[in-house]
């Protein structure tokens, strides 16, 4: 009995083994993400020019004051929220529909699975290149097709129209993200127990009620996780937007990340750029906190 109290080296290492296991990844993240993040925060309280980054001077909360007073920032915040919400809703909606569809058809399932791998696997830069051409107002295939179907007038503008640029961007985003969403939702869908299903069917539940009372509650946690992930990705997305529109026209697709990039790299205002980045980061954190609170509520209610 007494022997147990005595700490042998082996027991010691057992006790702290998790830190040994975690050390490489945590140290690595601290170096490559933690340190730059802190430096970024620090930058946001300074006036620093990218041409002369060593001549930085502290300005307190001035950048934040300017930011919240600038109409451009509010506009880009609105664009960001519009973009994030619609692309998340779009990906979830289309993803769920596709997942339900795959769950229904045995033959179609493999076909759809193979088909939706394409948008999922294609690199964003390649996607941006082809969509730029497809959206071309004069010779683009999208206009040709939609005009032939009498849906849009001839020479409709997409990426260069202040009203349609953001929806076009959302379309491309949904196109890229719905496959993964649907595949993960399908996995969740298939974990719904068959007995539960049968029991509900015997009770006379219709298709809609089956979905509402049996399937949906089961999938809720997965839907929540996907919502969170899709939102965070949307808040961060840069390459696609940059290559497709660079925030234009008339700033109609200038999200916070685009603004951050322009401010930091085109105008060289590193301090102000870092301020935008910090605010964006805080927004993401808020999203996550909101998610965890909501997830906890769901967990409690399903228990």
């Amino acid at each position: 009995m007494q022997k147990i109290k005595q700490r042998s080296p082996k027991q010691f290492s057992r006790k702290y083994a998790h830190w040994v296991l975690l050390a490489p990844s945590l140290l690595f993240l601290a170096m490559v993400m933690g340190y730059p993040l802190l430096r970024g925060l620090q930058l946001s309280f300074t006036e620093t020019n990218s041409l002369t980054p060593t001549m930085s001077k502290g300005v307190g909360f001035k950048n934040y004051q300017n930011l919240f007073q600038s109409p451009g920032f509010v506009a880009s915040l609105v664009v960001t929220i519009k973009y994030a919400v619609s692309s998340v809703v779009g990906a979830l909606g289309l993803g769920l529909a596709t997942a339900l569809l795959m769950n229904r058809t045995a033959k179609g399932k493999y076909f759809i699975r193979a088909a939706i791998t394409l948008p999922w696997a294609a690199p964003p830069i390649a996607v941006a290149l082809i969509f730029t051409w497809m959206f071309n107002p004069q010779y683009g295939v999208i206009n040709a097709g939609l005009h032939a179907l009498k849906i849009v007038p001839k020479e409709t503008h997409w990426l260069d129209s202040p009203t349609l640029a953001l929806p076009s961007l959302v379309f491309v985003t949904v196109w890229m993200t719905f496959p993964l969403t649907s595949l993960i939702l399908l996995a969740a869908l298939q974990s719904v127990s068959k007995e539960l299903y049968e029991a509900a069917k015997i009770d006379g539940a219709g298709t809609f009620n089956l979905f509402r009372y049996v399937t949906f509650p089961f999938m809720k946690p997965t839907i929540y996780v996907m919502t969170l992930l899709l939102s965070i990705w949307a808040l961060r997305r840069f390459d696609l937007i940059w290559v497709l529109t660079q925030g234009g026209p008339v700033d109609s697709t200038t999200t916070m990340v685009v603004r951050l990039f322009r401010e930091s790299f085109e105008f060289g205002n590193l301090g102000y750029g870092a301020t935008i980045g910090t605010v964006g980061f805080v927004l993401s954190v808020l999203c996550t906190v909101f998610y965890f609170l909501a997830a906890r509520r769901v967990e409690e209610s399903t228990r």
Partner: protein
Amino acid sequence: MERRSRYGVIAASVLIGLSSLSPIAAEAAVTKITYSNWQFAEPGRGDALRAIVDQFNATHSTIKVEPVSIPYASYATTVLTQMGAKSGPDVVTLDYDVMVKAQAAGLVADITGKVITPTSGFAAYDSKFIVDGKRYGIPWQSTGYALICNKALLAAAGAKFPTTFEEFVATVKATTKGTDQYGFAMRNTTPQEGGWWYDLSNWTYGFGGAWTDSKGNPTINSAENLKGVTEYAKFYDAKYIPQGADATTYRRMTWEGKVACNIDNGSVPTIFSDSNPAIKANLQIGKTPFPVAKNAQILIGTSLNAASNKQAASVKFLNWMLQATMQKKIQAAMGAEAIATKILPPAALLKDKPWLKTYAKLADNGVLVLPAGAELKTAEIRKAVIAQVDKVLRSNLSPKDALDAAQAEVKTILGK
């Protein structure tokens, strides 16, 4: 225990390995210098420029020049960020407005006295690279803008090569046939802000405008600029141009015979004829068809990165390029009417590219697109003006309100 330590060692060595892996500096007898120029990324001219670098490398055993090609759209941003962080290429070719910014921030090296004045003498704009008696670069190339038309398309529409603005409007109108053919093309989209600024400046300059007055006060909403922007917007609204097309697209369209006229710089006819030799005979080139003989001028220079520790080798490279034989070669390769030195295009080149004579003749009309007296804020002013013009084209803002708003914004930018 054994196993445990083995995994520990693997994990640790990966970490150590990662943090200490620095590129092995090739400190052999050969000094490697990097030379960045967006023209490397261009079809045709990129290869020609690479061949010039290859020639340098072939004739020098101790210095090796490596081309760095960054596309124009992201060039200034990328290079300036790198130079600001005390890294980046050793030799950099920069647009003049970018050079001015870099010089003010101390990012380009003072090379006073190191450059051997070429036998033929520097071109006149060389003085632009000397600030307070110190040299911060050498001119690389300069070109103005001219009207480039496809003779065949004009003839088919019964239109003539325009010399006045009224004729220009008539010609463009006559040669526009919906999406089958456009009378004109110009930049009008956000991702092309840089080029858009040159295009727009041609219109405002052409109606006698300027972005600032002689004292550096902004004159964005002057009557002349208003006239230029108004006419520019009319062209857009009338669909004389392929709306939304970027330069890459409409240039392709031009060499495929889908666009009658462009206003573009001296290197563009070369691109057209390289891409489609059949169009060469149809190119007719003359003065921009605006009332005032003033057009945008591109000035490009080559400087040394102040953070580079290979100045000596870099200077050698610059001086090698300034030799008369190399200047001739560069001129031919780049299809440029004006380069660093006063050398005029040789007869053979003029025969091959007759438009160079026209561009050279128009050289006196050229005005830089940097707002005089506010050169350092060119990027910010450009952004403010273009954003408003964007609204004129796409949000039904009147040109007058747009330029008034831009003027107010520019005043704030300049603190006036």
